[in-house]
């Protein structure tokens, strides 16, 4: 049984096609990256999974069951556009939102204490939400998402606004929950975070799926001929070298994709004649490079300064 199955789902708003024949499935107990540029249709897809809006076509099954209102209690959702009732006290708010998930009041109290303690928010229990910093509110929102121990957890940009310490804490909790058998959908623009924690991904662009599968396989498909180059000197000529298919220039270093027929050793020789090389590494392509390649428009594919 899959934690989530999305089958041929489409949704349009008037003449605007937000999601076009989208299918993907998520195995239980994994962390799944749902990726795509702004406006690709991620939020619409998630809202359909949450039954907040209804697909025009297609089916959505959560934990083997067709999604319905009752199933909302088995899913936790941290939206990207999120907020809390500013005038409510923290504890009161947590009680209210847990009640909406069908939890009984007497079992919630202990869980609230546990989570507030875990995030070091114990003394804020009786403060109004508006008195909390953005980072604290963010942590409260995470608590709201997981307090009912949902089987499926959807996190849309969960690290936004968190400092490195809290980012690590949240990431640890995500991995811990995965170990306990929870399935997590992780949606973000930060590809390095996806590479760290996701096993499988789905990339959506302009309402359609462009890539799906396990992260390792996708990287393999993308070939071995990717170089990481850190150099000193005038490097404009690199774009014109034969066999250089694509360059992502990150400023301090560049990621170069070579044609399969091109031998990196030869390239190294040519480079060494003209610039001073600090680092030269043959590696798998980064997810960031794959993302830009799949999503960026034609012009963006041309190297800068060409």
């Amino acid at each position, binding site marked *: 049984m899959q934690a989530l199955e999305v089958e041929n789902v489409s949704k349009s708003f008037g003449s605007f096609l937000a999601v076009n024949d989208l299918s993907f499935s998520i195995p239980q107990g994994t962390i799944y990256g749902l990726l795509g540029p702004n406006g690709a249709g991620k939020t619409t897809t998630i809202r359909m999974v949450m039954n907040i809006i209804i697909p025009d076509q297609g089916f959505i099954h959560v934990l083997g069951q067709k999604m319905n209102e009752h199933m909302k209690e088995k899913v936790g959702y941290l939206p990207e556009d999120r907020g809390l009732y500013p005038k409510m006290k923290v504890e009161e708010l947590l009680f*209210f939102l847990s*009640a909406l998930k069908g939890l009984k009041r007497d079992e919630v109290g202990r869980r609230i204490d546990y989570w507030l303690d875990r995030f070091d928010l114990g003394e804020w229990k009786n403060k109004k939400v508006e008195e909390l910093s953005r980072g604290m509110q963010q942590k409260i929102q995470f608590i709201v998402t997981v307090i009912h121990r949902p089987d499926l957890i959807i996190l849309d940009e969960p690290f936004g606004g968190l400092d490195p310490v809290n980012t690590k804490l949240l990431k640890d909790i995500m991995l811990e929950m995965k170990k306990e058998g929870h399935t997590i959908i992780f949606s973000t623009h930060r590809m390095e975070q996806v590479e760290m924690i996701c096993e499988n991904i789905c990339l959506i662009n302009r309402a359609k799926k462009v890539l799906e599968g396990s992260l390792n396989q996708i990287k393999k498909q993308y070939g071995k001929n990717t170089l990481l180059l850190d150099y000193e000197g005038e490097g404009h000529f690199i774009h014109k070298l034969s066999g250089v298919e694509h360059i992502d220039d990150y400023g301090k270093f560049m990621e170069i994709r070579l044609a399969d027929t091109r031998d990196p050793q030869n390239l190294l020789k040519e480079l060494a004649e003209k610039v001073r090389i600090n680092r030269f590494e043959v590696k798998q392509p980064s997810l960031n490079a794959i993302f830009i390649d799949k999503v960026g428009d034609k012009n963006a594919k041309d190297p800068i300064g060409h």
Partner: protein
Amino acid sequence: MQKILSVIKREYLQIVRTKGFIIGTVLGPVLIGAFLVIPVVFSLISVDQQEQIGVVDLSGEVAGGLEEKLDQKMKDGKPRFVLKLYENSKDENIKDLKEEMNQKVLNEEFSAYIFIPEGIIKGGSVEYVSQHVSDFDKIGNIHDAVNSVIIEKRLKKEGLDPQKIAQHMKEVSLKTSKVTQRGVEEDTGGTFIISYLLVFILYMTLFFYGSIILRGVIEEKSSRVVEIVLSSLRPFQLMLGKIMGIAAVGFTQYAIWALFGLGVSQYGSSLISGFFPAASFNFPSIPAYIFIYFVVFFILGYFLYATVYAAIGSLVNSEKEAQQLLLPVSMFLVVPILLMMYVIRSPESTLSVVLSMIPFFAPILMLLRVCVLFPPFPQVAGSILLLILTILAMVWVVAKIYRVGILMYGKRPRFPEIIKWFRYQ
């Protein structure tokens, strides 16, 4: 259902705990009470100051009887007016005499003087001179006293008995009664005041609770909490819970006011006359059927306007943006108030009947008609039925707008776009 209850509870507690609600609930009746009681109290307070009044009686016939007629007493039993007689001993001319008296008023030797000319029994006028002549109550008292002394003298001169004349001249009172299906009721004008008050309370509370709903929806939208809430329940459940929760707040407020009103109409009169025995004051009481219709029309009016305000809240991003859309809604509430006097004067006219059947006007205008002249029952039932049907239709329409609008940010949608929302699944 459990989820709707949670929403109702949250909405209720959030509002009931605010200072605004507590102040409004307590202050509302206090203000209305004060409005009724304070003028009475103040008119009693002003009685309690003894005044010296100078009297110049050139006729020599009036001053004697005046003291007896001007017998108002203060709380401690002393007379309110002390008359001081001035004889024209030095045979001054009238002009000099008046000048001298004026000076005495300015020096505050006495607060006023009365100048009675020589031939007053035959005709002419008495003068009252004071630094301020705006205390109509006091001047009225003095006028009455002078008047009755002089008239008695005139009658006696003609050989008539003033007491007998007074008996014959006694005014005939006009008693107004109102005949209804229920029988004849005596109407002292109190029902009119009460109707006016009830209609006004209805109008104010419809506005007040509508704007609470509007603010609640906008807060959920602008704080972006709405998507978190919708990951647990349907937009319709949220909307319904909010409307019911605020309705519960309204009932609480009305219940408190009703208890207060009941207390006042029961014990108010005796309480006031206990403190101020001099005042006779009767609080008009509300007939039970009027109160029932009042509550019915509040409930129906509330649900009708609540849906409209909820829809507007879901369409806008801020309260400021809401103002433009609110204008036509406010018109629906203001028009019946403007038509109020017309409906009171001709409650049976075709225009009144038609206007009071229009659902958006009905809560105020039909209640008004019920207060003034109970309309034929089919009209009342018809307007209630129309209101209920309109509310159901509005709930259906607004639910469609609300579920889409509440998740839309940025530019406010145009009307044709909103129509398209109805086709969304």
